[in-house]
């Protein structure tokens, strides 16, 4: 049945035996989590420990396979990119493969997913230990791992879209894990639907791209490698106008706007914090939300050809980075602050794409995955220990939860770009790019870096320092372990040469940019220290001074309100209710009217039936007269 065929794009150096093994490993990366998910849902739904073991074991297997491939590739034994796939749909001229594409980009992303994922899975074992529905949780986590790997390892647009939708579903299920909470259920819905709206554009982009991918209707393709080879030729020959391609690009960009929560579809991400914290760490910080960025990197050859679309991407990313950072100022929920920071950082990454730097974007994605997962897990540890997530009700955690605080601090520093930590390097790459290409954006990005430092500082000073009243207990080792692991990664990720792995070689360190950003960061931290730790400036007066922007920010720019207003008033009250009215009164009404007409006609006809015999005779005679006058014909 399964016709596996491996197409080594770079033919040559690979030993056939190794290639075969690599193919198996590649499949194993993708499929092990799926098998585990199915196993959990089928047999482990009431066996918690089985579910945990299966989920962690499954992802660990994927991790091992990834590492194997990674080392083979980095040692040069294995020629990348290589691809194994089966034909999922083959119908007439249409052929949709389903497979695994291994190259440097996918390997690094797979490592992020399986590596950080394994840590978070392990952490969940502790975090969800008492949860009654832990089996479902782990099943969904495994399914999620499969789904995100489907995206990451995808060889074509349709497979990417499949993974894209599946992660959306897992995200929905996991956000709504505690479905008894109405807010959680609502947040899940919101996340799914917002993503659906974005995917509407995305799938149309894919369809359109598919339809222009060849001049012959039975030769079209969704396959990345083929498209990559073919599109430039098509554009050059004029078969595909650049304008068309730009529109396609914009439509495709809709996908990341939703999945990576870019402005204005970012609204679902803060709400998604209703889910269990490990979920926030894995899905809504490290991997899934980064999938949009990954997709843009994966298909950057396409966006390269359409600078106008790249510009749009740039501005959307920059706007998201800046606006989300500002939202972090007024938020009091520990996880939501992190969520806004995630938004802002995703904005950075998208901006990097827009600036033409997929490597920088991927670099930042990787480092961000490490430290943001760390931060979320730390937050999770805090919540696990204190059952509180309002930062103003926390405080003094450095005393009660020392290890958590330490790792959280490392994460925070990496986030704000403290020199020497991973975030510093990756952010720097983006800023450099920005300065090269677009000065206003560069300034905005630097300002955003300062703002990041400010709200991160605020979070740290309020929740961890300060006079403590939070009585927390330190988390169990199974949770602390991943924290340390991630903290380590956050420190070293800047030094292991990720850009080089991704194919960037100039690596000149720009002192001016680094210094400017560090200054901005320092300023941010200082202001927050003055405000929240030293209390040198009364926060209240500042709020009064900035009343207008404050209310704007507190209401999240009213975007949620606008959407709610649209849904409640336009969609439900006008469109849906209007259609329902039309249905009830016009469509059903018309049918009823026809029925009533028949009944009425019957009643009318029966007026002849007076019961009086002479009337009957009269009608009889009238009928005869009618026949005679109507049909008598002279031949």
């Amino acid at each position: 049945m399964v016709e596996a065929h491996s197409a080594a794009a770079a033919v040559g150096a690979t030993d056939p035996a190794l290639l075969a093994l690599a193919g198996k490993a590649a499949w194993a990366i993708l499929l092990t989590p799926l098998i585990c998910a199915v196993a959990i849902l089928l047999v482990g739904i009431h066996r918690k420990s089985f579910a945990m073991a299966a989920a962690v074991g499954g992802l660990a297997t994927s991790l091992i396979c990834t590492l194997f491939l990674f080392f083979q590739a980095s040692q040069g034994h294995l020629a990348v990119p290589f691809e194994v796939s089966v034909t999922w749909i083959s119908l007439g001229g249409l052929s949709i493969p389903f497979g695994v594409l291994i190259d440097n980009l996918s390997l690094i992303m797979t490592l992020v997913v399986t590596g950080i994922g394994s840590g978070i899975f392990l952490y969940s074992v502790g975090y969800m230990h008492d949860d009654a529905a832990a089996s479902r949780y782990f099943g969904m986590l495994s399914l999620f791992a499969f789904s995100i790997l489907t995206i990451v390892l995808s060889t074509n647009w349709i497979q990417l879209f499949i993974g894209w939708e599946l992660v959306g579903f897992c995200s929905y299920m996991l956000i709504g894990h505690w479905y008894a909470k109405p807010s959680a259920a609502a947040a899940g819905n919101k996340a799914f639907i917002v993503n659906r709206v974005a995917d509407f554009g995305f799938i149309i982009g894919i369809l359109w791209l598919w339809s222009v991918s060849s001049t012959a209707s039975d030769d079209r393709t969704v396959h990345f490698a083929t498209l990559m080879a073919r599109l430039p030729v098509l554009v050059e020959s004029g078969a595909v106008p650049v304008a068309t391609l730009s529109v396609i690009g914009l439509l495709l960009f809709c996908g990341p706007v939703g999945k990576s929560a870019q402005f204005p579809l970012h609204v679902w991400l803060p709400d998604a914090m209703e889910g269990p914290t490990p979920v926030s760490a894995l899905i809504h910080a490290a991997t899934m939300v980064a999938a949009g960025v990954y997709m843009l990197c994966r298909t950057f050859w396409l966006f390269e050809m359409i600078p106008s679309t790249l510009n749009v991407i740039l501005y959307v990313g920059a706007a998201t980075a800046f606006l989300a950072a500002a939202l972090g100022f007024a938020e009091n929920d520990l996880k939501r602050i992190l969520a806004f920071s995630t938004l802002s950082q995703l904005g950075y990454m998208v901006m990097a794409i827009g600036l033409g730097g997929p490597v920088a974007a991927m670099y930042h994605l990787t480092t961000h995955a490490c430290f943001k997962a760390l931060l979320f897990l730390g937050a999770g540890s805090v919540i696990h220990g204190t059952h509180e997530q309002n930062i103003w009700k926390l405080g003094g955690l450095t005393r009660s939860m020392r290890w958590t605080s330490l790792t959280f601090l490392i994460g925070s520093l990496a986030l704000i770009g403290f020199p020497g930590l991973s975030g510093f390097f990756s952010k720097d790459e983006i800023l450099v790019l920005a300065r090269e290409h677009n000065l206003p954006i560069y300034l905005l990005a630097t300002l955003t870096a300062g703002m990041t430092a400010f709200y991160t500082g605020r979070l740290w000073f309020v929740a961890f320092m300060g006079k403590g009243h939070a009585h927390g207990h330190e988390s169990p080792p199974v949770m602390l372990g991943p924290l340390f692991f991630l903290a380590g990664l956050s420190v070293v990720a800047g030094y292991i040469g990720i850009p080089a792995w991704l194919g960037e070689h100039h690596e000149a360190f720009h002192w001016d940019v680094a210094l400017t950003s560090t200054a901005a960061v320092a300023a941010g931290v200082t202001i927050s220290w003055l405000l929240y730790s030293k209390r040198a400036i009364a926060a209240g007066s500042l709020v009064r001074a900035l009343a207008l922007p404050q209310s704007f920010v507190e209401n999240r720019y009213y975007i949620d309100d606008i959407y709610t207003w649209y849904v409640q008033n336009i969609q439900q009250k006008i469109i849906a209710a209007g259609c329902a009215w039309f249905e009830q009164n016009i469509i059903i009404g018309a049918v009823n009217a026809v029925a009533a007409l028949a009944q009425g006609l019957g009643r009318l006809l029966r007026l002849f039936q007076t019961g009086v015999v002479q009337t009957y005779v009269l009608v009889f005679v009238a009928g005869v007269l009618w026949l005679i006058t109507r049909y008598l014909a002279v031949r």
Partner: protein
Amino acid sequence: MDLSLLRVELCVAVWIFVLLAADVFLAPAKKEGLSWLALAGIGIALVVSLQPLPIGPAPTGLFALDGVSHYFKPLFLATAAAVILMTQAFRPQMPQHPGPFYVLLFTSVLGALILSSIQDLILLFLGLELLTFSLYIMAAYLKTDGRSVEAGMKYLILGSVSSALLVYGIALLYGAVGDTSFAAIRAFLASGELTLAAQTGILLVLAGLGFKLAAVPFQLWLPDVYEGAPAPVVAFLAVGSKMAGAVALMRLLFLALAPIQPWWSPILASLSVLTLLYGNLGALGQRNLKRLLGYSSIGHAGYLLMGFAVGTLDSARAVAFYLLAYLVSTLAVFLIVCAATDELGGDDLDHYAGLSRRSPGLAAAFFIALLSLAGVPPLAGFVGKLLVLMSAVAADRLWLAGIGAVNVAISLYYYLMVVKRMYVDAPPSPSPVRVPAASLLALGALILLILGIGICQAPFLSRINLALIF
């Protein structure tokens, strides 16, 4: 004249006297047995009627025993047998003396048998009168029931007027042709002459036959008579009388009026449309089952007229099949009505509430018979309607077929209203409805026939194709 041609009619005629004698000489207590005697007579006649046709040249003269009559005579006799069974089931409502009733039924059947063989307008007139006279009396047979008398009165008056018109039409036609035999009329019309007098005469004759068939606008008597007359009589009116009218019309149209088919075809077509719509729309709001069946029977007349209007051999065969299907379905319906009226307390639709809880088998049979009347596969009525519609389409009368088809859906509505009463509504009492064994047997046979004709149509259609050759 060869008496063997008249063998079936002779059987019936002789049995009239047997019945009369028995009615006189039987002790009142034993008069129950009269119905079996009557059944025996019908049985003998039925056996005789099933004898194969004598092979020979096409019959001439007033009276012919040809394929058409050979096909229809057993049907009339079967109808009569069913009606006799109905009177058994209907006994509680009937007056004490059943003897005259059977005699009248036999004379009526005699008229119908004659009509299936006519070759002459005189015989057409007399056959119709013979058929109808008995029915006037039978309609008014429940002397203590005001509605029955009213039905008899209305039927009588309209019947007399219609027969007066018919006779006047025959007179005009005679004046134009100089003879009353179908052959002479056919020769006259074939010569290309179609005088106004002849046309008027034909129209009046058609009106008279339309009265029997209940074609609009000659149908007004029908709902009232159906509602008022005793149920077995209504059954005979609905099946025997209508079928007799249809046979007479068929013979008239195809034996006498064939040369001017283009002239009468549109007339019948417009009558057909009016009849269909009147019957089916009129039935929509009915509350009395017999009245509803009356309107529905007008609707069925519309389909018959549609077949006639098409005026091809195929359409005549379709009509013959339609009549067969209509016969089995309607008789089944009336067997149930007759059996149930007394125990249910009346023949309003509401009286049938919850019948399926009381007598599931009876309700199921009713369901099947009604659906067959509506024309739903796999039942007999469906094939009948299909054949008629096909013949209409075959003659390029797509619009006519379209109206006929839409009427199927309309009629389904009111049939289902009956079904709703039986199956959905709650029964007033849980006691089952008792049905005499003979009626039950007949009912079972009819239901089997409904299914059999609906599923294995081929033998029936072959029989008709062999019989109906003009």
